[in-house]
């Protein structure tokens, strides 16, 4: 029994951290987030493909590395730490769906090679609770409107869940950009009246939802770990009343709570990933718990990070707000906290 990473896993962590530091230092990510209309950098995307990250969990038969969810969590935690913009998690989830469907090895190989970008179009309404019109697949065509489609403007194709099954459509797509507060994520509203091919039954999304929960949880973990580091560094150098503000017990206790939330998220996320990889009976509960907890924890950690930085924490200039905004996207998408609470209750049998 061992919670720490194996040698191979530790190597994956350190090499990912090195790669991201080299290929997308924060200044580069900031440029992408502020100025790139697609929301990610093509050269970096090719780098992610060449280094095997895009095919991390893609089966070996389709040109991927065939690694597990623990390895995916390691990579996503590092991407969270780096505040990496772009559709990495979204493409991994599309690949998860295609691998579960079977018979899609050619497309999977293209995804892993970075030749094509496919994401999943889930949301059927812009606001929670508003009744959407469910997308339908009939006579070889898919019809409906999808909201908050990840990186729709840049995608070559979309996986579209409908009540009749999940189908695949190709570009050109009619996309209206939905600009949100998070410049690290791009969304579009997509009106569909397209020829489509059926990929498989709606049940394929079950596995996707579990991986999405762990994956978003891992990115949230990386964000929290990074902001805690930044905040500790800040309170140790920032002076007020002739001492570093980190000497004040009122901040020390809140920093202790930030560590508690961050490390508890780490326990929950990696346990959930391990449960998925071993088909553990607790996997559904562990995944829902990890995502719901990570979302709540990130609110506290990101909020406290801004508060303890004071005025500078509210400026565009400081990097902090990009993390704060990524965290909000990750919290509300990939299975919102509200939906994960219901999933947790269902998994526990309540």
């Amino acid at each position, binding site marked *: 029994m061992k*919670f720490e990473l194996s040698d191979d896993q530790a190597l994956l962590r350190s090499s990912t951290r090195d790669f991201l530091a080299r290929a997308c230092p924060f200044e580069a990510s900031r440029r992408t987030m502020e100025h790139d209309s697609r929301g990610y950098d093509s050269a970096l995307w090719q780098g992610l493909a060449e280094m095997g990250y895009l095919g991390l969990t893609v089966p070996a038969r389709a040109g991927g590395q065939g690694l597990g969810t623990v390895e995916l969590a390691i990579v996503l935690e590092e991407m969270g730490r780096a505040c990496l913009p772009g559709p990495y998690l979204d493409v991994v989830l599309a690949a998860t769906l295609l691998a579960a469907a079977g018979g899609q090895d050619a497309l999977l190989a293209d995804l892993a090679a970075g030749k094509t970008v496919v994401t999943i179009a889930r949301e059927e309404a812009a606001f929670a609770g508003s009744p959407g019109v469910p997308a339908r697949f009939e006579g070889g065509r898919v019809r409906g409107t999808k909201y908050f489609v990840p990186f729709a403007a840049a995608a070559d194709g979309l996986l579209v869940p409908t009540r009749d099954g999940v189908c695949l459509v190709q570009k050109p797509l009619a996309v209206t950009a939905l600009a949100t507060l998070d410049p690290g994520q791009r969304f579009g509203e997509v009106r569909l009246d397209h020829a489509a091919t059926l990929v498989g039954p709606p049940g394929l999304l079950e596995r996707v939802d579990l991986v999405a929960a762990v994956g978003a949880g891992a990115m949230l973990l990386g964000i929290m770990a990074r902001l805690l580091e930044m905040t500790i560094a800040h309170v140790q150098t920032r002076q007020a009343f002739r001492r570093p503000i980190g000497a004040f017990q009122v901040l020390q206790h809140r*920093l202790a709570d930030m560590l508690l939330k961050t490390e508890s998220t780490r326990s929950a996320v990696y346990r959930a990933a391990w449960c998925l990889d071993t088909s553990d009976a607790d996997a559904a509960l562990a995944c829902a718990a990890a995502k719901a907890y990570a979302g709540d924890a990130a609110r506290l950690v990101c909020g406290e990070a801004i508060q303890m930085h004071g005025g500078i924490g509210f400026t565009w200039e400081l990097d902090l707000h990009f993390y704060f905004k990524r965290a909000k996207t990750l919290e509300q998408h990939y299975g919102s906290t509200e939906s994960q609470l219901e999933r947790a209750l269902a998994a526990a049998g309540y």
Partner: protein
Amino acid sequence: MDLQLSAAHLHFRNELRAWLAANLPRPWREELRDPRATETSLIELRRAWQKKLYQAGYLGMDWPEQWGGRGGTEVEKSIMEAELARADAPPILNILGIGLLGPALIHHGSEAQRRRFIPPMLSGDEIWCQGFSEPGAGSDLAALKTAARLDGDHFVLNGQKVWTTFGPWADWIFVLARTDAKDRYGGISFLLVKLDTPGVSVRPLRQITGESEFGEVFFEDARVPREHLVGQTGEGWRIAMTVLGYERGVGSLANSARYGRDLAQLAAACKELGRTGTAVREKLGRLVVENEVMRANGIRALANLADGRAPGPESSLEKLYWSEFDKRFRETALDLLGPGGQLLRSSPAARADVDWAREFLWSRAGTIYSGSSEVQRNIIAKRVLNLPQDAR
């Protein structure tokens, strides 16, 4: 990363599960709601249960065999604690002896002390209580004033201890006493005192639950044989710190099993009462999630132990997590049950599943005893985050 128990640990766990199934007369919650149960009868039941565990070789799990232990590992001890919780076994009566004094004697005691005190501690024949806190020394424990003056081959003890859990039923107390008024930390010594020594008196204190599980202990010229000093004169603080490290230890797995059982009862109660609206579901869902994360913390702690990583100051995170969760859980349970949740066990209308009113009141204790939440946050800030010495 591998979160599966090893084959040997699985074997140990399964053997223990089978033993519990054959030997546990009935779950603790049923003992508690037996109308004939009294405070004294429950103590005797716990004593008998402890003896049974001891005779089967399940106590002193990680202590050397030559002193009455099993010679096992801390991993087996954690597994055992989790299994006892899962089976809803009665709590170990001599928890302060086994949990705190035992490690102190193993690390710092003399051979004669280990042989004299450990076997009856494990069997439940001698119950121990802990004499650390004083009216003027709680979180600031080193401010303690109870004095021990050497007089020939005895220490003469004067002073007062308070919040002494099990004081009213214990046979012995381990005491931190001041042997040098001028040396704040180095002037403290660790003494073992029999409670029927002339000059020692115990007064029960009534707690907010109405029970008297703790009390006050007074020392007036009580004479304690010199051989009941643990370690050397002036080593008391160091010994106490070893001991408190054990107290904060790795219990998340056992705790989440216990909370999981009460959560299942709460969920069933909500269903039965028709409390299925979204506000209720959200509250219940957060409790389930937080308890599951506690379990993940427990699995991580167990895996670290098995991996040869002894728990350090980060075990304060576990104490902080469960004790703060306990308060939220019990508050929320009353929210969900409504006024009926406040009924005392003696009321015929009270629910039979869990004594919700008592658990609610009890939850206020966990963030105070064994190092308050404030003390735990101080430890985390200084020893895990390495923040500067604070300005209070």
